[in-house]
C-alpha cells in the first residue's frame, strides 16, 4: 500500500508516527476501494414515514404494550444466565487456553459467529425456548471468556506465586497466589460482559425469542411506531439504570429469582438433536459420498465472491467510519469540554446511538437515502463510533491537563488526543471483527453480504447451506481478527467495549 503523504512527513519509528501511518493507510485503503461500493442515493419523500416514527418516539403509547414487564424480566434473566453459563464454560477453558491450540481455535470459532446466528441454529432444535436463548449467548461467550480470562490471568504478577516454597501444588498456587490478584479484573470484565449480554438478549427477540426485542421488532416492522417508541424508551431505561438494579449485592438475588422466569423448559428430543447435527447440517451428497453431487451442491451456493467482497468492503468502511465518528464525538461526553448541560446531552446522544439496534438506524437511513450500502455504512459507523467515543471520553476524563489555559481546540489536538489516540485506535481495530459480524444483519438493504445469504438459507430451510456459509463467515472473521491484532497498537491496556 503506497503512503498517501509526502515523504519525510511521517517517517520515523516513534509509536505515535507508527499509529499515524497505520490510521492513514486504513483511511486511504477505504478511499481507494470506495468506488467499488454501491453508494447511490435515491430518496423521494421519506418525511411522512419519518415523522410517523418521530411522533411514535415522542408520544409513546405505554398502555398498548402487552406484558412489558414479562418481556423485561425475560430479557434480564436470559442475559444473567447466559453470562453465568458462559463463565462456567469459559473459565475452565481459560486455564488451558495458552497451552492448547485446539482450545484456542475452538474458542476463536465459536466467537466468530454472531449470537443471532447461533440462535438461528439452536432454534431448529430447541424451538422458542430459554434453552435456545441461553445456548446462543453461552456458547459464544464461553469462547470470549476463555480468551479474556486467560489474558487477564497471564498478566497477573508472578511475584506471589514465585515466592511460594517449592512443592506447593498447582491448585493451591492458583487459588491462593494467582486468583486473588486477578479477581478484581475478572469480576470487572464479567460485569462488563453482562451489560453486553443484556443488549444481545434484546436482539435475540429479533429472531423470535420473546424478549423485549421481539415486541420492538414486530411493532417497528409493522409501523406501530407509538408502541415501538414505548419499547425503545423501556430499553434505554433498562440499559441506563443498570447501575441501580444491577448492584453487586442484588445480582445473586436477581439470578436466583430469574430462574423462574426462564421456563417452561422444552421437551428436548435427543433424536431430533442428533438428526440436526448429523444430517441437517451437512450437504446430502457429502453424506452419501457422491462427489459429483457435491460439486453440483457447491454450484448452487449463491455467489460467494461478491458476498465476501461486499462483507469485507462494508466491514472496512464501517471500521474507518467508526474511527472518524469516534474522533468527532468523544469530546461531547468528556469533562474537558463544554458545560454540564452539553455533557449530559452528549452522553445521552452517545448512549442512545450505541444502544439503538443497528437494524433500526439502518432502516431510518434506508428511508432517508434509499437502498444501497450507504445506510448500512452509516448505521455501523454511528453505532460503533459512538461506543468507542464513549470509552475514549472516559479515558480522557482520567487525564489531568498539564497546560492550563489552552483553548478547546488546543486541548483536543495537543493535550488529550495524543494521549488517548493509541487506546482509541486499539478499540477500533478490536471492533473491526465485530463490525464484520454485524454486516451480516443488514440484508434488508438489498446488499448481498454473507449474512444476507445465511439468512436466506435459514428461511429456505437449507441448513446445510446455512452452515457452510457460517463456516465461511467464521473463517473470514478469524482472518480479520488476526490481521487487526497484528496491526493494533500494542502499547495500550485494553478497555474492552463489548467487543468480543
Amino acid at each position: 500500500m503506497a503512503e498517501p503523504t509526502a515523504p519525510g512527513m511521517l517517517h520515523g519509528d516513534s509509536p505515535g508516527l507508527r499509529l499515524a501511518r497505520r490510521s492513514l493507510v486504513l483511511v486511504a485503503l477505504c478511499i481507494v476501494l470506495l468506488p467499488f461500493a454501491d453508494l447511490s442515493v435515491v430518496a423521494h419523500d421519506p418525511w411522512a414515514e419519518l415523522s410517523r416514527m418521530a411522533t411514535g418516539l415522542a408520544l409513546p403509547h405505554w398502555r398498548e404494550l402487552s406484558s412489558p414487564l414479562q418481556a423485561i424480566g425475560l430479557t434480564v434473566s436470559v442475559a444473567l444466565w447466559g453470562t453465568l453459563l458462559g463463565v462456567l464454560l469459559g473459565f475452565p477453558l481459560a486455564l488451558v487456553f495458552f497451552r492448547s491450540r485446539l482450545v484456542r481455535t475452538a474458542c476463536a470459532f465459536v466467537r466468530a459467529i454472531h449470537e443471532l446466528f447461533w440462535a438461528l441454529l439452536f432454534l431448529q432444535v430447541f424451538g422458542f425456548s430459554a434453552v435456545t436463548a441461553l445456548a446462543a449467548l453461552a456458547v459464544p461467550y464461553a469462547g470470549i471468556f476463555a480468551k479474556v480470562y486467560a489474558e487477564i490471568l497471564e498478566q497477573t504478577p508472578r511475584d506471589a506465586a514465585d515466592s511460594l516454597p517449592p512443592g506447593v501444588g498447582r491448585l493451591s498456587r492458583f487459588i491462593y497466589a494467582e486468583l486473588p490478584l486477578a479477581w478484581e479484573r475478572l469480576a470487572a470484565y464479567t460485569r462488563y460482559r453482562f451489560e453486553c449480554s443484556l443488549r444481545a438478549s434484546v436482539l435475540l427477540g429479533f429472531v423470535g425469542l420473546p424478549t423485549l426485542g421481539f415486541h420492538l421488532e414486530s411493532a417497528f416492522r409493522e409501523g406501530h411506531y407509538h408502541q415501538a417508541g414505548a419499547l425503545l424508551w423501556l430499553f434505554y431505561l433498562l440499559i441506563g439504570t443498570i447501575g441501580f438494579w444491577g448492584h453487586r449485592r442484588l445480582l445473586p438475588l436477581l439470578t436466583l429469582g430469574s430462574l423462574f422466569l426462564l421456563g417452561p423448559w422444552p421437551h428436548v428430543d435427543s433424536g431430533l438433536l442428533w438428526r440436526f447435527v448429523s444430517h441437517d447440517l451437512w450437504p446430502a451428497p457429502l453424506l452419501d459420498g457422491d462427489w459429483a453431487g457435491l460439486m453440483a451442491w457447491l454450484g448452487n451456493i449463491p455467489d460467494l465472491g461478491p458476498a465476501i467482497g461486499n462483507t469485507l468492503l462494508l466491514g472496512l468502511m464501517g471500521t474507518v467510519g467508526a474511527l472518524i465518528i469516534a474522533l468527532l464525538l468523544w469530546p461531547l461526553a468528556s469533562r474537558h469540554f463544554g458545560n454540564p448541560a452539553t455533557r449530559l446531552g452528549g452522553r445521552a446522544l452517545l448512549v442512545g446511538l450505541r444502544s439503538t439496534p443497528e437494524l433500526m438506524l439502518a432502516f431510518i437511513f434506508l428511508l432517508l437515502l434509499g437502498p444501497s450500502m450507504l445506510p448500512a455504512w452509516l448505521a455501523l459507523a454511528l453505532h460503533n463510533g459512538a461506543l468507542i467515543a464513549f470509552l475514549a471520553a472516559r479515558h480522557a476524563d482520567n487525564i489531568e491537563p498539564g497546560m492550563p489555559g489552552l483553548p478547546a481546540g488546543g486541548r483536543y489536538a495537543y493535550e488529550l488526543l495524543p494521549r488517548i489516540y493509541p487506546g482509541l485506535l486499539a478499540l477500533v481495530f478490536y471492533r473491526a471483527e465485530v463490525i464484520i459480524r454485524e454486516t451480516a444483519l443488514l440484508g434488508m438493504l438489498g446488499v448481498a453480504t454473507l449474512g444476507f445469504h445465511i439468512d436466506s438459507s435459514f428461511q429456505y430451510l437449507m441448513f446445510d447451506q446455512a452452515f457452510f456459509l457460517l463456516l465461511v463467515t467464521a473463517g473470514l472473521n478469524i482472518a480479520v481478527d488476526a490481521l487487526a491484532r497484528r496491526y493494533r497498537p500494542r502499547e495500550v491496556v485494553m478497555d474492552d467495549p463489548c467487543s468480543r
Partner: protein
Amino acid sequence: MRRLIATTLMLLGLAPVAQTQAQDTFRFTAIPDEDQTRLVERFQKVADYLADTLDVDVEYVPVKSYSAAVSAFRNDQVQLAWFGGLSGVQARRLVPGSQALAQGVEDAAFHSYFIANADTGIAADQDQLPESLEGHSFTFGAKTSTSGRLMPEYYLRERFGEAPESLFSRVGFSGDHTRTIALVESGTYDVGAVNYSVWNAAVEAGRVDTDKVHVVWETPAYPDYQWTIRGDVDEHFGDGFTDRVRQALLGMTDPDLLESFPRQGFIPVSNDAYAPIETVGEDLGLLR
C-alpha cells in the same frame, strides 16, 4: 468440530433437567400477515375456543417467522399451524403424513398486487405487467412469503422471461408487507409486490397515501394460507382427532376469533390444492 460435539454433549446434559413440560398439550402456532401486535392475547382466545371444542389442553406458541413455524412443526413443538402457501408446502414435505385441513374463504383465490410510486409514472390498474417496470428498483416482502415473494417472482419471470435481479436495477426484501408499502410510498423503492388483503386493509384504515403509491397490476388467483396438521396427532390425541380439529376450524364463526387471521371463515382444503405453489417453489429454487 470437537467443539461442536462438546457443545452438543453439554446441551444433552441439560436436556434431562429440561423435561418438565406436559406431553399431551395440543399446541398450535399462527402468524397473521398483518398486525402482529398482541398476538398472544388475541390467539389465546382461539386457543380457548379449540380447547373447549376439542376437550384437550390447547396452547398457542408465538412464532416470529414462517421458517421458525416450519421448524417448530417439523420438531413436533407444535402440531397444528396456520401457514402461508409456501411455508405449508415446506412443512408438509418435511413431515410426511401431514395434511392441509382448512383454508380461509379468501385463500382459495388469493392475489398479490404490484404497487408503484406515483413519481415513476407507471400507470395504475393495467391489464398486464407493464414493460416500463424494467430498470426500476423493486422490493419483495419476506423471502419466503407466498404473496410477497413467490407468486410475484413467478409472474415476473413469466412475463419478462428473466430473473428479477436482471430486470430491476435493485432487488430488496423488505421483510414485511406493511414495510413494502411504506418503502414504495416514500419512494425508497420504485416498485413492490404486496399481499392484496394487507394493502386493502391499509387503504381502508387510511394508512396509505394513494396519491403517492398505487396498484399497477393484480396477479391471477392462487391458493394461499391454510391450516396444516401433523399426521401423527391421531396416535397422541385419539382416533378421529384430525377430523375433530378440522370440524372445529370450519365451525369457527365468531367474528372476534376470525378477526385475528383475518378471514371471513374457513373452508375445507386438501394438499393437492397447493400443487401449483409447490411447482413454482421448485422452479424458483426455494424448495428442494
